[in-house]
């Protein structure tokens, strides 16, 4: 009995791990000015939260920050929450500067400049966008009887993750470029007795694409 239950579950788990949904990622960047990150300087990755019907997900922002701190060209990244808390209430959803001129205005207030200097911030990366379901179809029905429970059917859905990062040079008070990452993916869920989710990791792939492009952005001087 134990083996009868375990075998399909293990197989489903393995299948889910090996076969995921399909995702395509498109990344692009435009650079107006050269970049230079000196030893000890930091970048901060912050999500834009001023959109009325969407919000840049905190997990996407922390994912980008985490990828930027890894590998050969690792950057020193200040965690979003630490930075926003240190500068409360100036970087909240409704108070954060939307233009570089707004940042200049904020810096006329000495205490804000001090926090930036403490963190040795050189670049601020503003990430704007979200991941949303664009289409779904199919149906899965489940039933229960004395013999047990079972599901049957097929479901599929598409998701699009669209993000744009604006990179501000804090020290020169200029917008130096933009990086975009768009990921489209389709997930499937066939159900024969047990539902087997084959999930396309759209947001994760958009994050990786964005982070790798940002590393390239800072690695190349022009």
């Amino acid at each position, binding site marked *: *009995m134990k083996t009868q239950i375990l075998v399909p579950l293990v197989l489903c788990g393995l299948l889910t791990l090996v076969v995921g949904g399909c995702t395509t990622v498109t990344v692009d960047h435009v650079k107006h000015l050269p970049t230079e990150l000196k030893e000890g300087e930091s970048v901060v990755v912050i999500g834009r939260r001023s959109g009325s019907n969407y*919000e840049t*997900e905190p997990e996407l922002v922390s994912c980008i920050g985490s990828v930027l701190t890894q590998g050969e060209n690792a950057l020193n990244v200040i965690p979003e929450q630490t930075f926003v808390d240190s500068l409360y*209430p100036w970087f*909240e959803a*409704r108070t954060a500067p939307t233009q570089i001129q707004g940042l200049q205005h904020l810096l006329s207030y000495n205490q804000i400049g001090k926090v930036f200097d403490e963190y040795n911030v050189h670049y601020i990366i503003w990430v704007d966008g979200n991941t949303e379901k664009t289409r779904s179809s199919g149906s899965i029905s489940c039933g229960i009887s004395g013999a047990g*429970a079972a599901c049957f059917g097929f479901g599929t859905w598409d998701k699009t993750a669209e993000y744009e990062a604006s990179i501000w040079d804090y020290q020169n008070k200029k917008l130096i470029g933009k990086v975009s990452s768009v990921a489209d993916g389709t997930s499937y869920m066939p159900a024969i007795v047990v539902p087997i989710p084959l999930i396309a990791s759209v947001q994760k792939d958009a994050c990786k694409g964005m982070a790798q492009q940002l590393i390239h952005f800072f690695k190349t001087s022009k």
Partner: protein
Amino acid sequence: MKRVNRNLGRLPKTLLSIFFAGCITLPMTGCKSTLQVQGNFPSPLVNQLPLTMGVKYNPQFREFNYVEKNEKRDDWEIGIGSAQMALFDTVLPAMFKQVIAINEIPPSEGDNIDLYFEPTLEEFQYNMPRETKINMYEVWIKYNMKVYDKHGQLIADWILTAYGKTPSAFMKSEESALNEALVVALRDAGAGLALRFAHVPEINSWLEQYK
């Protein structure tokens, strides 16, 4: 011995049936959800006013508890009182040289208090993702702020609105998502209070005279 084995063999099947039955039954029943809002609020980075402020928190404010009465909505009981007290106890001391909690305006005993402040929560609203077309938990809070001079005369009376939202996420409970939206809204209230207090026209002119 045989009978014991057979019963054990049935157990996973029975458990599975109960689990599935539970999964299906739970969303259909009208269980009450309760939430005690919890969050940490940072001290605001603002210029401190050289004033002693007496603050009066009404019991309704300290223990504000929202109970959903709309029969078309799910039953929710949301305790905001302690979280908003934590917010005001963090924000006000950063705004003023000294903050003293009082029970009456003006207090019966003579104190060197320059201004009195009395916040009231007037309205609280929330939206769940299934109620709107967007995958977002949203919260609105409307405060009425009153400031009195040292003689207990009303100087300023204004409305402060706060908004917070948080996207729904896989494996995130409704309680946790709503808590996040509420913390964002409370932070927004703190930001509005800290940044706009001195710009409220009546307070601004009082401050000009005080100088």
